[in-house]
């Protein structure tokens, strides 16, 4: 068998892995987006706990962010991967179901990423909240807005505006973390490259392609976050 050229190998021809790699890149983006959004939900509540909670809630929230930022992400992914199935199996046995219940790798991955990035996003939101001027919140209260309305109309829009750069950084982290999900068997970009590398014996070519695709995704998302930042700041007067 003759050696395929690099472009035949990663192209879209009969022997090419192009479509498989692109689909896998789509999977990477999908799991990263789901994880990121889960992290936004977690992060919002944790930030709320840090800002407005009583002593117990505040220390719980602080403990959560400290622990999740101090241990390796891979460990958390293992916990969700192995622990999730064990927990589901235990719940299943209560209802009479027998044996091993597997959690879909996509759900495990998105949840693990959500829990990890939630810790980072909580810090981003907390920092952004502190920039929102106290006067605005007092003004909102003085016109009779209650909590939810004030959160929706005054706090959330401004916090989001200030949080965009920080969220951009977190998104980059999430994107790179999503490569770790490959250990659970989810066929995302790195896993697909691994499979392709194994079956063609051309590991360098495929990992290089994966690296280029990751760079491309990073590059496009940096651009999008920059656009979002300029858009959200369009009404603000900047110093300098």
């Amino acid at each position, binding site marked *: 068998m003759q050696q395929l050229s690099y472009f035949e190998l990663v192209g879209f021809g009969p022997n090419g892995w192009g479509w498989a790699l692109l689909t896998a890149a789509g999977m990477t983006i999908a799991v990263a987006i789901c994880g990121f959004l889960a992290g936004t939900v977690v992060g919002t509540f944790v930030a709320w706990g840090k800002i407005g909670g009583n002593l117990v809630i505040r220390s719980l929230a602080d403990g959560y962010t400290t622990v999740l930022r101090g*241990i390796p992400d891979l460990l958390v992914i293992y916990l969700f991967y192995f*622990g999730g199935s064990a927990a589901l199996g235990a719940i299943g046995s209560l209802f009479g179901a027998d044996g091993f219940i597997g959690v879909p790798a996509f759900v495990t991955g998105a949840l693990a990423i959500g829990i990890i990035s939630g810790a980072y996003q909580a810090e981003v939101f907390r920092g952004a909240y502190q920039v929102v001027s106290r006067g605005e919140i007092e003004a909102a209260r003085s016109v009779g807005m209650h909590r939810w309305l004030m959160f929706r109309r005054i706090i959330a829009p401004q916090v989001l505006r200030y949080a965009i750069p920080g969220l951009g950084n977190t998104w980059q982290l999430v994107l790179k973390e999503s490569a770790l999900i490959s250990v659970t068997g989810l066929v995302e970009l790195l896993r697909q490259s691994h499979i392709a590398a194994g079956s063609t014996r051309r590991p360098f070519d495929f990992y290089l392609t994966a690296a280029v695709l990751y760079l491309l995704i990073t590059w496009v998302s940096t651009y999008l976050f920059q656009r979002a930042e300029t858009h959200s700041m369009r009404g603000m007067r900047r110093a300098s």
Partner: protein
Amino acid sequence: MDFAFMRDTFLTLIGGVPLTLNLAFMAVGLGAILALLLALMRISGLKVLNWPAQAYVFVFRGTPLLVQIFLIYYGLGQFRPTLQEWGLWVFFREPYWCAVFALTLNTAAYASEIIRGGLQSVPHNQVEAARACGMSGFLLFRRIVFPIAVRQALPAYGSEIILMVKATSLASIITMMEITGLAAKLISQSFRAVEVFVVAGLIYLVLNFIITRIIMAIEWWLSPHLRRPPAVEPRLEAAHV
């Protein structure tokens, strides 16, 4: 919670600590040298030097560390005959050296930005004052620019070291049995994910706590000018005059 099991887990996992620290310190140490070079290239003002350094940082910060590890550990196997010819295969054959190499290249990219920030934060008047005293070139760098830059960059560098300790866990995927590798093995043998996770997590937290404290101590030691001056004994004889 089964405490006997947790004690056994702890005793097993503690055996992975030396390898974790070994990988982290090798990478941070070698990475710091490369990072300083990259940072100097970035601020040199020469396009030929600036451009490659910028590209390097973009590539290594924009791709996942695991991809870099795979590219080195599995990928370079594709060039085995060439590497054997150059005598480098003994090096790239070992997962340990591949992990150290990948972690070093990765941390150098992040650290070079931190060092660059530190170097650029050195106040210009300090440099001018040093020049007025007749310092220039390497002496100026060694005595004035570098110490101030290190002081500025240290807090950020501290978090980079913590990130590296966490990143060593990826070496477990290429068969290195450090803390996470041992933990994964234990979980797959015992199916008690929560207990093993708690113990392994605690070990990492303690390691990172100690490292943070050491960095804080160095920071304190490097910034005597920010501390309150020691209380001077009042001169009693003056009061009697």
